[in-house]
């Protein structure tokens, strides 16, 4: 193990480590803690210049205010309506593409694979004008469907990379044995491979949920207005309205951050397994 386990060092070093650890954490999360505290600070405190001290009381009404006086609930709801279909769509498509690229050897296999990988890295701006144009032509501009369709397509790139590598690592004998038995290709996919890739499906679902929930650029390009915009774009316009009303901005930010954070803590193992794919040989 590197660095040397702290247990093998002097008691003084061990004690120092245990003290330094929480201090580092607090420093690391200082901006976030500040915002969390501001979100429960009564507006009276801000007016009185009490920005950093202990809040005079815990003003949870800031959160109620945010819901009452802004369309934040609608924005959050829109985010769910966009994110969840994209999660299913992108994962389903990539199970198919990943299976095709991992199991079959055909001439263009690597080329198609690297097309998915490369497409996944391009700057969004090179897609912006044509994708917006296409969405307008389809009559889907400023609809949840229009935004979700694009996300499904784009996320398929990353998800295919992931699925293909995951399926490639499965024992091939399973598939070959089934072929010898005369099982059809679709049945191999459905009954043999799909149950085995369940961990990959879980990892991809949490990752896609987080990526799409946090998307801001495409929401700005393909939607306008509170009836369709997700919470990221919504927060941007609320931020314009709530100039210096930091207790409201903070409360709104915390609410917008909550769903992916909960998702992360519930599915931590899968989340990290997905993100660190390839970090170990």
């Amino acid at each position, binding site marked *: 193990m590197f660095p040397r386990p702290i247990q093998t060092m002097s008691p003084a070093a061990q004690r120092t480590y245990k003290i330094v650890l929480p201090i580092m954490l607090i420093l690391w*999360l200082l901006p976030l803690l*500040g915002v969390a505290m501001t979100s429960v600070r009564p507006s009276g405190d801000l007016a009185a210049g009490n920005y950093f001290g202990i809040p005079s009381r815990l003003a949870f009404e800031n959160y109620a205010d945010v819901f009452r006086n802004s369309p934040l609930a609608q924005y959050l709801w829109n985010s769910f309506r966009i994110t969840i279909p994209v999660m299913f769509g992108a994962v389903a498509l990539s199970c198919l593409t990943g299976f095709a690229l991992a199991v079959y050897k055909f001439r263009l296999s*690597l080329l198609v694979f690297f097309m998915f*990988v490369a497409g996944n890295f391009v700057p969004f701006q090179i897609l912006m004008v044509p994708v917006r144009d296409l969405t307008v032509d389809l009559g889907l501009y400023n609809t949840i469907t229009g935004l979700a369709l694009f996300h499904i397509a784009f996320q398929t790139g990353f998800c*295919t990379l992931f699925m293909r590598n995951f399926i490639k690592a499965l024992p091939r004998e399973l598939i070959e044995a089934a072929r010898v038995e005369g099982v059809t290709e679709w049945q191999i996919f459905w009954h043999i491979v799909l149950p085995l890739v369940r961990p990959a499906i879980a990892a991809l679902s949490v990752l896609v949920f987080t990526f799409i929930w946090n998307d801001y650029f495409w929401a700005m390009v393909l939607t306008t207005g509170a009836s369709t915009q997700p919470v990221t774009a919504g927060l941007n316009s609320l931020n314009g309205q709530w100039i210096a009303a930091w207790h409201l*901005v903070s409360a709104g930010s915390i609410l917008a951050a909550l769903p*992916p954070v909960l998702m992360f803590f519930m599915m931590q193992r899968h989340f990290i397994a997905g993100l660190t794919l390839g970090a170990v040989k």
Partner: protein
Amino acid sequence: MTALPHPAPPPATVPRARRSRRQLTPWLFLAPGLLMFSVYVIIPIFQSIWVSFHDWDGLGAMRWIGLANYSELWWDEAFYTSLKNNIIWLALYLLAVPAGLMIALFLNQTVRGIRIYKSLFFFPFVISQVVVGLIFSWFYAPGFGLFYALIEWVTGTGVALLADERYVTYGIIAAGLWPQIAYCMILYLTGLNAVAPDQIEAARLDGAKGWRMLWHVVLPQLRPATFIAVVVTVIGALRSFDLVSIMTSGGPFGSSRVLSYYMYEQALSEYGYRMGYGAAIAVVLFGIMMIFISGFIWKMWRDEKGA
């Protein structure tokens, strides 16, 4: 050309129809994903390049103007500001890699509760950049913000970081580094988990420790993690849009623009719908990105062939 990994030569008795069906199968599985990806990602790249040779407001007819958009870029002051900022982003963003490694080394212990510490250190990455931008806007806000107050306390006068042309880009990059360091940290923590203990012990017996151990024994084993950390950091730096848009909208006086934001501004905002000019900026950004993407793909291709 068979579906099998160790292709036995197809016996001559296999009917021709069945063989061609075997060849068709992968394409049937690929079809829906490939179709979506082509329509929304691959084809638009070429369409954008096409649009960049036109004058177009997004509604009316497109007018071919050849390279006029690019020659306009050549003389465009704002373009160079954005390009310069992109380079600063790229250079400073890469600090996330060593910083992430340092935190990972710090946290790679087995004391009580360390798992929770690791998750909490990773926390900033899960939050959307919009929220990170708002958090740091508050952090820097004159009068209200913690950072502003700290600077004021240390130096006597506060600095309105996001309203100062000299510092604004650095202020935004610092906000971007926060989640990026978290990401690099988790990559290295996973990598450190897999470092071969016997090699470490052997090196320790040879008297290696500290920096020398890190450089000669540990880092070579962390190479896959470093590769991914560099890839995601470079891509992240060149994609930076959200933070600029949220924190400053490119201001003050356009001094914090980056190419991605400038493109958006030209194509879709009050500056008028100059789709052609915007597309030309996007093509330049794409060109810069392609240098890196080709490098990554080349390396992955080599690994794939070697495997």
